[in-house]
């Protein structure tokens, strides 16, 4: 791996980290799609600023873009508050308009510059390191590296400073208002961070892969833990994993780096979705099965103990009345016999003394037939 490749991977990792930090809170608050909206809506800001200053290097472009991102948030909130549209419809109306205006402006006034529409959507990480930053004539690294590094530092600082406020307003906005943390102010802080991050990352990975980096790693981490600090840490790890893995994939297959990073984040998500301890699909399935296995003998005993007299019951009669299949009833009887709750005598099922006690206890525990 040469210096150029190392630099590209570093930029990708830093971008992934910078995106994952605000992403955690977007996912927790259920406003993930604001990242999609903002990453599209910063386009007109960039274009208008570019048309005003006629330079792509000017820092004013970043301010224009961040402003335009925040303006989208404000417009969306205004629409929601007007009570004429639901939240998702309001989001879905505002950002396409902003994005369209940006695309039209590019197509009409900025056709022959570096700012073309493919670039906007797709980004090009391979070119990101070509734009060098010189201080006093010395090459100190690519400007994308410094920009994303700065944004990462800003995100980390803000989240560290407002951790408590972010946490309480994400999980319990009403309580946050009561203890006079301003949820609205915190919401706009989060949106401002998202806008700034989207502006920086937009140039590197494009408007849509930004969404993959902001949402997918935190959602993956959300499958693995219940604790906020672990959630943040895991999101950062998964994001970096996607960045490094994505770059490796792109380099070996010679395809879009941004696309590969998004695909890799999807792959990591899929792995967690299947195998995550306790919340993965497989763990859930096993859990449900274990639970059913534990519950079935309890239901059987409770059912038998509720019947008057202890004269033994036919197996298919019980199955019929409980609405169980023959396999289910056999499994339940097998479990109950192993635990000595029932005995099988003369082809009939009999409840034992132990079974009676268990039935009473489990009726309280599982609340069946109560």
């Amino acid at each position: 791996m040469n210096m150029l490749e190392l630099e590209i991977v570093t930029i990708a990792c830093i971008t992934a980290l910078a995106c994952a930090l605000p992403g955690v809170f977007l996912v927790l608050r259920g406003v993930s799609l604001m990242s999609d909206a903002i990453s599209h809506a910063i386009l007109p800001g960039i274009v208008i600023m570019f048309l005003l200053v006629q330079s792509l290097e000017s820092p004013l472009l970043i301010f224009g873009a961040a402003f335009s991102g925040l303006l989208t948030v404000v417009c969306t909130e205004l629409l929601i508050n007007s009570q004429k549209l639901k939240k998702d419809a309001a989001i879905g109306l505002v950002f396409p308009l902003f994005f369209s205006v940006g695309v039209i402006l590019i197509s009409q006034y900025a056709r022959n510059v570096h700012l073309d529409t493919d670039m906007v959507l797709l980004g090009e990480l391979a070119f990101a390191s070509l734009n060098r930053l010189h201080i006093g004539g010395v090459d100190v690294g690519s400007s994308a590296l410094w920009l994303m590094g700065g944004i990462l530092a800003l995100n980390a600082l803000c989240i560290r400073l407002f951790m408590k406020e972010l946490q309480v307003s994400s999980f319990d906005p009403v309580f946050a208002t009561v203890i006079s943390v301003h949820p609205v102010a915190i919401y706009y802080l989060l949106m401002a961070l998202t806008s700034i991050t989207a502006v920086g990352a937009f140039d590197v990975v494009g408007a849509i892969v930004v969404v993959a980096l902001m949402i997918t790693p935190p959602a993956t981490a959300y499958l693995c833990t219940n604790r906020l600090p672990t959630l943040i840490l895991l999101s950062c790890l998964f994001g970096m994993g996607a960045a490094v893995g994505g770059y490796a994939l792109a380099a070996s297959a010679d395809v879009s780096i941004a696309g590969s990073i998004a695909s890799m984040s999807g792959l990591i998500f899929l792995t967690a979705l299947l195998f995550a301890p306790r919340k993965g699909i497989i763990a859930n399935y096993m859990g449900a099965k274990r639970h059913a296995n534990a519950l079935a003998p309890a239901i059987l005993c409770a059912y038998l103990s509720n019947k008057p007299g202890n004269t033994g019951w036919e197996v298919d009669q019980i199955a019929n009345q409980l609405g169980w299949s023959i396999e289910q009833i056999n499994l339940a009887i097998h479990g109950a016999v192993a635990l000595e709750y029932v005995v099988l005598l003369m082809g009939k099922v009999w409840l034992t003394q132990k079974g009676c006690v268990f039935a009473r206890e489990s009726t309280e525990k599982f609340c069946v037939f109560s």
Partner: protein
Amino acid sequence: MEIALFTNLINDYTLRTVVLGSAVLGITAGALGVFALLRGQSLLGDAISHASLPGIACAFLLTSTKNPAILLCGGAIAGIIGSACILGIIRNTRIKNDAALGIILSVFFGIGLVLLTHIQKNGSSNQSILNKFLFGNASTLMHEDLILMLIVGGVVLGLLTLFWKECSLLAFDPSYLRSLGYPVVLLDALLTLLTVLSIVIGLQTVGVVLMSSLLVAPAAAARQWTKRLSHMVILAACFGACAGVTGSLISSCVTHLPTGPTIVVVVSVIVLISLVFGPRRSFA
């Protein structure tokens, strides 16, 4: 100018195709959008349209044809897979609706990018596919495309009319529908399938990125004028057709003006007018 445009409309074959195509698209998307809006699935369209990109790329890789019917069929399959994934994630994990949409949207789009760059690198220069499906270009619509749009649009609207009662109950009171003994899951799948189809026929004209807007915006505008579902569907279809035709005409007249964004601006103006002047003052 207007007279010239009007005579062009009658005589110019290409322009006529463009206008008819956009009208069909607007009507279909507008009508289906009403159900998406009422069911709180306005952003599902966004995810589906982005998710169709890898399908288009796969169809091209497998068949190496540029036949839009085959490419769009691939897109529809990917769209269906994407919406099934979203549903699977929401049902089986604690991840919420919005994050599931965001994940599928961005990851599928990323896979699409990987496949498209792979196609580009391996010989045949098909940058044009990418550009065509990202922002759409109404002026490249051919007669065959129009036929395809008419057939798919007709099927979608026909099915919607056929299952009108079920679909309207599904939009307002799915539990009641279930209690009546209807297969709610199947009907839900049907409505999602219709939405996917109406999105897919718009990909050539409006593009992957902005197609969802054509689904949501006419419905949102129509919602401001009426409370009745049937009126809302008809009104949304009219708004959609109006926006589609106006937008594609403007973009055909101005050089380098991409069609998708132009249609979105037109439809947003309609929404803005409806929000300001519509008689409805609160939502239910």
